[in-house]
């Protein structure tokens, strides 16, 4: 978890080139990484309809994700409000289709197949402590969406076909 004092930043919109770039691994104990994590969390807190954000979305090409699925109506369990450095997917099971949007893409959503149960390893910014997250339902979808951001992928890259693209009629899930 990050300390207080982060600054909310502007969320970049596609087609910004940073959203197509692979983000760099970070030293979770480095002060600039801790500051970036605090900014990411502050930006997420400012957007209550958004369940997660990745650092490239706020203009930082760093492998940091933040998420908080507690308020989402399709949550089952949740890890709480969390920032994870260098997250990597260690396990994925029970794939299902679900509609998701993105804070960086206005006006569109799509049905995307994601694992509904995942295991993610990473580090906590600040202490650098190892962390393992067992996520399900919308939290699992959200984390996978953020992991894609770190690899320069948008949900549009995973649309299974023409009929899976929709105009957004509600706030984004991921």
């Amino acid at each position, binding site marked *: 978890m990050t300390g207080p004092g982060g600054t909310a930043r502007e969320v970049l*919109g*596609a*087609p910004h080139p940073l959203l*197509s770039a692979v983000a760099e691994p970070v030293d979770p104990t480095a002060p600039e990484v801790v500051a970036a994590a605090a900014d990411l969390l502050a930006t997420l807190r400012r957007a209550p309809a958004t369940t997660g954000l990745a650092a490239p979305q706020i203009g930082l090409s760093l492998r940091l994700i933040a998420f908080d699925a507690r308020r989402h109506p399709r949550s089952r369990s949740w890890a709480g409000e969390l920032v994870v450095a260098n997250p990597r997917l260690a396990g994925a099971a029970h794939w299902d289709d679900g509609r998701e949007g993105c804070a960086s*893409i*206005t*006006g*569109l959503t799509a049905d995307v*197949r994601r694992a509904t149960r995942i295991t993610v390893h990473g580090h906590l910014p600040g202490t650098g402590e190892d962390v393992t997250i067992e996520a399900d339902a919308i939290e699992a979808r959200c984390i996978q969406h953020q992991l894609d951001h770190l690899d*320069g992928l*948008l949900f*549009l*890259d995973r*649309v*299974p*076909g*023409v*009929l*899976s*693209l929709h*105009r957004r009629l509600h706030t984004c899930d991921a």
Partner: protein
Amino acid sequence: MGLSAVTVLGVDRPGVIAAVTGSLADCGANIQDSTMTLLGGHVAMMLLVSGELDPAELMKRVGAPDLVVTASAIETRRHFCAEGDGLGYVLTVHGPDRPGIISAISAVLAADGGNITGMSTRLTGRLYVLIADVELPKQVDVAALMRRLAAVGSTLDSDITFRPVEPDLL
């Protein structure tokens, strides 16, 4: 019993679909295949209808002051429900909007005999999105095609993904 292809274009409002389909039902036309979408606030419908009326009569029956309707006879339904012998792929393109994206991408696919069987494009803010279902002949060198698509994508500042359709047989 003949087949006609009917297109309907008009400003979107509640009741357009009901009016069009009601007109067709009243004259005994049976809607076999159809698709409808909104394009910039306009409703666009394409219908394949069967019935005894010729296309000119269908246009009269469906026509309304605020709708542009066309109808034409279709002699046969080629490849209807035929098992395709190609391989299915999904193409996605996203990047800044500019003229010529569809033509550039579709030309690359056509050069290899690729058939676009469905396509949707959306402009949302500055972001242009294209999703296409593509059928490729089996003999196509897919890796080489992907390199050509990537090269075209880079000239358009667009990101392109091209991947096999996931099988949906359970």
